[in-house]
């Protein structure tokens, strides 16, 4: 087993451990929310998954820029992998949000700014995957994807502003408030649960990313061999 593969396996095992501990902490150890009761516990997954999705789209942007600049296939594989996993985590965030929204707000979905923004992000990166899938020529697909990755990322602040001015209903953030330190308005055990889950999601993310990059490299290798024969 190569060292990269071993690293990936260790990452996966660590992610599994953190996920199990995080679920125990979030579901059992942390106290229920004063107003929302148990439904608030989904927050321990919801917040890490959207942060992971953001991280993912940032990696798409970085990979896209690097690819256009240096034309290394490696950067393109990174961007493509990150986009795919980003779509997964964004979709997960929306589903978790809907499950939480039904008992709390009374509706699965509402046209609030942050919800809309997340849905638009999902649409942009689903379009990214479709664009890649529908362009056959390999290098052209990579360049097109890189351009969408960059333009999409540049568009996020503008979409953010426009939908915020349009409407806002989402919970204001309860941890990062400017006037109070987090431990005063949130039970410390809740913060621990959130932190463990956050680490778990980051580990899981990088595990999936490394696996997906390996798959991308194998696919590139396969295409090369089909074109030029075995060397």
């Amino acid at each position: 087993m190569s060292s990269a593969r071993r690293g990936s396996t260790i990452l996966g095992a660590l992610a599994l451990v953190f996920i199990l501990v995080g679920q125990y902490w979030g579901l059992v150890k942390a106290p229920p929310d004063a107003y929302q009761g148990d439904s608030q516990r989904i927050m321990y997954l919801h917040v890490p998954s959207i942060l992971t999705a953001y991280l993912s789209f940032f990696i798409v942007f970085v990979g896209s820029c690097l690819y256009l600049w240096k034309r290394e296939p490696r950067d393109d594989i990174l961007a493509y992998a990150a986009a795919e996993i980003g779509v997964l985590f964004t979709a997960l965030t929306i589903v978790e949000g809907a499950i939480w929204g039904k008992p709390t707000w009374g509706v699965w979905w509402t046209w609030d700014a942050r919800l809309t923004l997340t849905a638009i992000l999902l649409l942009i990166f689903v379009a990214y995957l479709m664009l890649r899938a529908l362009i056959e020529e390999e290098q052209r697909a990579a360049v097109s994807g890189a351009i969408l990755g960059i333009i999409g990322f540049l568009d996020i602040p503008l979409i953010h502003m426009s939908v915020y001015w349009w409407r806002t209903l989402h919970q204001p953030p309860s941890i990062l408030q400017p006037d109070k330190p987090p431990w005063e308005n949130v039970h410390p055990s809740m913060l621990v649960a959130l932190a463990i889950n956050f680490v778990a999601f980051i580990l899981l993310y990088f595990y999936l990313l490394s696996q997906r990059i390996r798959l991308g490299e194998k696919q590139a290798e396969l295409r090369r061999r089909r074109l030029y024969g075995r060397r």
Partner: protein
Amino acid sequence: MELLRQACWLLWKDVRLELRRRESLMSMFFFGALLLFLFQFSFEIRQDRVAEMTPGLLWLAFVFTGMLALTQLFQPERENFCLEALLLTPFDRAALFVSKVIFNLILMLLVELVVFPLFAILFNLQYWGLLPSLFAVTFLGTLGFCVLGTLFSAVTLKARARELLLPLVLFPLLIPVVLATIRCLEIILRSGAWSEAYPWLRLLIAFDVIFMTAGYLIFEWVVEA
């Protein structure tokens, strides 16, 4: 300046082609008018609600007719290796981008010039005095639409199911333009004043400037890939 001069030459080529064939413009006119009829059939627009629905309906008509133009935008270059021939000339690649943006802008503005009064007549609206400000906002929105549209029309040039893919890629990215333009139009129609619309106007201008610059910088990679 040299860039603009080159863009003018390329634009002249597209305009002459369009003058001789009259394909895009004619189909856009009729499609735009057709949409107005469809709106009436689907919403049964009543006199008391027409003012609040106008900005959205107008923009839907512009966006759909604009899509029609965008899918045809690089059609002349696709045939007979014309794009490759253009790339062989010593033109700046960005000039091609600028010329295509302007060409699409001209097509859409011409359609808008007809659809705006037609809408007022068909739905019995009295916004004649506001037309200059409505046009100004629509111009900014249309420019943003054309900038991103041209860029992705070129990106999807060699994709399978190109006509399907383009709106899928483009619409989510265009949400700031659509929202800002519709809100601006609505504010102007409601109050007749600009002051309330300033944040949205700034957003529109920022969008136009950011993506004009980005398109100008990366178009070279788009056509050469």
